[in-house]
């Protein structure tokens, strides 16, 4: 029962758009305050007719990122794509669903090819045309790691975007170094004494990118469009090597319902397993606070790739380990505000 005896609190915060603060757009606010995705004029860098699975998080993430980049640069973007789901489902001859200039070379060289594109634009006297490299977690954390590091070290003017769905999805859901511990994949099946992926040392490419000291590193998620767009826009305002790591659920590979893509991405953030943060020149500058914290089990439960954890005591133990990882992230990146509010 609310207190009806106090006079009106003058410091009461008035959110004039509280109905739609977290939505893509809002009829009550100006176009500038809405996301790029809300605009009827958005580029749709990735348009209809592509062959992604229903509910594909990567298709969503790619359009989000590319449209924001297009907005930031006035349409002056060239995209270089690594081999993977994104490349395969967007450009099967004779159909392409890209509306921007786009190049696919190989699996592990997107960062290097983008370097070449950026160099060409500079030498041709068109420095306003910016190069973006895109790759999945396989093409980034594993096979593309050498080229990525080289690009970072040279501080080439490339924004590298990694769409992380935590496995080699395009070839049939095999484990990558981004696959979370305990997850089932085709090469880490849910069998034997320790079903699913191992609890290794983990490989955080965002952290490695930060260690390279490049101008801008950020993690983002399809569950927070405004944050993702802000980071892309910010990145495009910077020259030099930039890295953006976007978490994108894969219904097929994760064994989740197609409509749960954004919900799962949200839960990953809210439980702490996917920390959303930014860094510049080797220093973490901020993080997105958890709004309504949930235990990791709530995030794991709707995914069949973790189903084996819920049917045994050993599994429960491993859930506890995952919770510990989440708790460490929360501590490290200060994901829970001191006051406990977003």
């Amino acid at each position: 029962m609310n207190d009806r005896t106090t006079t009106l609190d003058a410091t009461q915060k008035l959110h004039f758009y509280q109905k739609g603060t977290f939505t893509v757009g809002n009829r009550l606010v100006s176009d500038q305050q809405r996301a790029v995705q809300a605009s009827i004029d958005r580029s749709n860098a990735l348009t209809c007719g592509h062959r992604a699975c229903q509910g594909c998080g990567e298709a969503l993430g790619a359009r989000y990122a590319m449209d924001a980049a297009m907005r930031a640069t006035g349409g002056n973007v060239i995209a270089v794509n690594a081999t993977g789901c994104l490349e395969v489902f967007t450009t099967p001859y004779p159909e392409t669903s890209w509306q921007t200039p786009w190049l696919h070379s190989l699996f592990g060289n997107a960062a290097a090819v983008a370097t070449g594109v950026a160099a060409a634009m500079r030498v041709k006297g068109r420095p306003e045309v910016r190069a973006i490299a895109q790759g999945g977690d396989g093409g980034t954390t594993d096979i593309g790691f050498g080229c990525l590091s080289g690009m970072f070290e040279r501080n080439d003017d490339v924004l590298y975007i990694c769409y992380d769905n935590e496995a080699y999805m395009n070839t049939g859901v095999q484990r990558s170094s981004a696959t979370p511990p305990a997850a089932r994949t085709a090469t880490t099946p849910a069998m034997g004494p320790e079903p699913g992926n191992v609890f290794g040392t983990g490989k955080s490419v965002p952290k490695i990118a930060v260690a390279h000291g490049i101008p801008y590193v950020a993690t983002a998620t399809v569950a927070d469009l405004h944050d993702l767009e802000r980071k892309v826009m910010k990145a495009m305002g910077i020259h030099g090597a930039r890295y953006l790591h976007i978490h994108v659920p894969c219904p097929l590979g994760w064994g989740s319902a197609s409509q749960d893509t954004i919900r799962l991405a949200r839960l990953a953030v809210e439980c702490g397993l996917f920390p959303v943060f930014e860094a510049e020149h080797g220093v973490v500058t901020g993080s997105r606070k958890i709004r309504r914290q949930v235990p990791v089990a709530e995030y794991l439960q709707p995914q069949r790739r973790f189903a084996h954890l819920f049917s045994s005591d050993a599994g429960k133990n491993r859930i506890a380990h995952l919770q510990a990882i989440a708790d460490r992230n929360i501590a490290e990146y200060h994901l829970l505000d001191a006051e406990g509010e977003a």
Partner: protein
Amino acid sequence: MLKQIEGSRAMAEAIGLCRPEVICAYPITPQTHIVEGLGEMVRTGEISKCEFINVESEFAALSVAIGASAAGARAYTATASQGLLYMAEAVYNASGLGLPIVMTLGNRAIGAPINIWNDHSDAMAVADSGWMQLFAETNQEAADLHIQAFRLAEELSMPVMVCVDGFILTHAVERVDIPEQADVDAYLPPYEPVQVLDPQDPISIGAMVGPEAFTEVRYLQHYKQTLALRLIPEYAAAFKKQFGRDSGGLLRSYRCEDAELIVVAMGSVNGTIKDTIDEMRADGLSVGLVTLVSFRPFPTAALREKLVRALNVVVIEKSLAVGMGGPLANNVDLALRNVAGAPQVHSVIAGLGGRPITKTSLHRVLRGAFVQPWEGSHFLDLNEKIVAKELHYVRKVRRSGPTAENLLRRLGQAEKAAV
């Protein structure tokens, strides 16, 4: 302008005159002096409007070139041997995408065992990748071929590899005529891409092509290379007109008019062979030489025309297809396939891993060919004693150890014994 100049440096200057826009550099013996030279020239401004990028691997080097070329810039890189293999995926990618990248291949043996000296095994490894391959005989030709290569690549939208023998050409200091910028500009127009990444006119390059169209794509690539059979001589002729000397072309012949025995070879060894032929001719032996410049596209018809009237053909090559024999000899067979009364083809494998090919040895094998042509591949100057010892040892001892080390040890023992 005539200069007394290291081969690598001469090439660098010729490449610089071609106004490259993006140069990717990764070091590997024996091409390193080329990219070092280019790097200096970019720094001093001798080459202007050019981005010189030090990359972290050969794979990155060609990848950067791919990106640059697809975005409309004239791109160049250089490699050899192991580096070429490391970028092998990108080699096929560049030709598959039809990007006119020019790359210098400082021909070097491929390990294991690791070996930094010259042979043609690296070029052979990617001969079927869709790149054009031109082999230089001299430092002059090495420089000149690069200029022709850019024009050829950009006209056909297909990458070109200029093969230069490692150390022999790259590190030798010789007199080379470095062309004038104006002549090169007249010969080589600015790069006009067939397809380009441009926000004003977007396209998607690099689609996934399935069974329904893949064959056609490959056929068109193959067809394009056959067009080069006409363009290469045309551009060589134009080169002569502009620069006043013969250079390049598909092949050239030396004293073949009435030859009973014709030698076929690529690269720098042709110089030694010509000297040998002169001496043999002086002794009344009817022998001639065809120097193959263009290995890809393979000039089947032109070569056939040169060889068809001979009795015997000896192919001398610095390459070995392990388990088969001489790959160049195999290609030469193609020129004589189904030809009635064609000469016999004999294969010589020589100079592997940089072993010098001497006139003495050439005399021995060519004169021997007149007397008793052999079957299969003849390994020039093979140390049969050591080989026999090794084979015997291996038959006796199961854990016989690594071959290379064993041979080296035996060689060492033999030397000691000789002293």
